[in-house]
């Protein structure tokens, strides 16, 4: 669906080399997550694929054609939701969908079902200016997918949302995947990436350092461990041991046999740990 080859981008004004020769493929029907801290290049990459930024080097193949050869018709086939709502504030939820929907050849017919999908049916006659941020983001989500596009782009889809609203959006993204849609999302939220993405790519300073499934990355590059809290010589101690080869670990066995154990916890590497290992940077902060 999307094939990126040796993509380079330099911002014309600042001269910043924001994307430095990245390559990746996104297959039909998968959720692909771009993971990185602010300023790493994830939104720039997304904007290049969408076409908001032009003048790139390398290849961006989307829906079988180079991006620079697409005209505005591409927006009949792709849906885009930014990390802020793009809605007419003085119009109601229904008026927004009807007006924006009328720009598409595949104008939706059943607006009530769309609004119901994100729990906004009972608010359809309310002006958007009276909506909470979560409600606006949910409406914005529906706005971006109402013309039934094949490829969907979400920029930080759950950013700034409370857990209930974030869950609704995540469920809808999974529902879109179940309908065979291809989804490209950017996030700096590792939980979102772990829960939703079939593949994730780590981007930092315009360079891709890893692409794989979240579980592979965590298994291959993360270290699972067991943490013991125990009393040794009347002193409380804490030690972590790698999970692999634990049965043959003499130090671990010694503690179990000789000391008084207070707690035993197992832990596994998070995507964030793996990200830090690859890039030396934290995702947030």
């Amino acid at each position, binding site marked *: 669906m999307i094939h990126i080859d040796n993509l380079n981008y330099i911002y014309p004004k600042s001269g910043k080399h924001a994307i430095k020769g990245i390559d990746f493929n996104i297959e039909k029907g998968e959720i692909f997550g771009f993971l990185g801290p602010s300023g790493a290049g994830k939104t720039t990459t997304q904007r290049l694929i969408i076409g*908001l930024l*032009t003048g790139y080097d390398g290849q961006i193949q989307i829906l079988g054609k180079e991006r620079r050869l697409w005209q*505005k018709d591409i*927006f009949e086939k792709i849906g885009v939701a930014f990390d*802020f709502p793009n*809605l*007419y504030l*003085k119009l109601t939820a229904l*008026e927004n969908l009807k007006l*924006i929907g009328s720009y598409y050849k595949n104008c939706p017919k059943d607006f009530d079902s769309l609004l119901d999908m994100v729990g906004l049916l009972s608010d359809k006659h309310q002006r958007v200016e009276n909506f909470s941020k979560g409600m606006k983001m949910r409406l914005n989500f529906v706005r971006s997918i109402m013309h039934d596009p094949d490829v969907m782009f979400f920029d930080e889809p759950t950013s700034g949302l409370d857990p209930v609203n974030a869950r609704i959006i995540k469920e809808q993204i999974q529902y879109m995947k179940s309908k065979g849609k291809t989804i490209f999302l950017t996030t700096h939220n590792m939980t979102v990436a772990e829960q939703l993405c079939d593949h994730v790519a780590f981007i930092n300073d315009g360079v891709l350092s890893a692409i794989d499934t979240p579980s592979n990355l965590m298994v291959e590059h993360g270290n699972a461990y067991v943490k013991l809290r125990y009393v040794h010589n009347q002193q409380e101690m804490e030690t972590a041991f790698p999970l692999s080869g634990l049965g043959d670990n003499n130090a671990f066995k010694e503690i179990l046999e000789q000391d008084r154990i207070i707690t035993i916890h197992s832990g596994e590497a998070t995507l964030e740990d793996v990200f830090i290992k690859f890039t030396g940077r934290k995702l947030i902060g």
Partner: protein
Amino acid sequence: MTSTKPIISDANGQRLLSALKADVLFQFKQGFYFVYIILSLFYLIIFHQLDSAWLSYVIPVVLFMDPSVLGLFFIGGILLLEKEQGILSLIYVTPLRIWEYILSKIISLCLISLMVILLISLIAYKGAVNYIYLIIGVILTSIFFTLIGFLVATSSKSVNDFFVKIIPWMMVLMLPCVLLGFYPNLLLLGLVPSVASLKLVWGAYHAINFWEFIMLVLYMTVLNIFLLKYTYAVFQKKMVLEN
């Protein structure tokens, strides 16, 4: 071999119509039409106090000022309010073309100006009016001033910034119109687009010479086409790519 290709296909025509509908609804809900109604009532009350000799001078001037000044200010308000609400980014990720976006703004403001002006003229003016000249004059005036407002709004960061920038433009465009009152025969003044517009609207009430009318219409049409193309290029570059 020649091929015929419609300039506006069915889908494009539908999109332009949808954009126009969105603009009218947006302007209505933002209270622009309310301002227009109040202003029109104010004009009608003033005109009611004047005798017909005065009216033949005052009405053309006021009806020229209406599409020009309001076009100038309204388009700035509309564009910057839309920018604040993220509508410009939204437009970019829909199939709506930038041409359609700009045209629907121009048409929506032109239509409301035409309606108000025709209504005021029909109610308040009892003398002879060439309504075909008036309609053509108002359309060309409205397009010109809306495009100037569009250009200034494109380089403005906020509504306040727009107002600061538009005042000098208004002065530059309106001052030659005042000069026309003192030097009505100075041909050079007619090259100033605002003066050409005023002459067109004025001419509808004061039996302008046919050939002068044609010249002015051609001049304003050519000017508007160039201005439209320039506005498109500037808007495409600044508003869309930099956002």
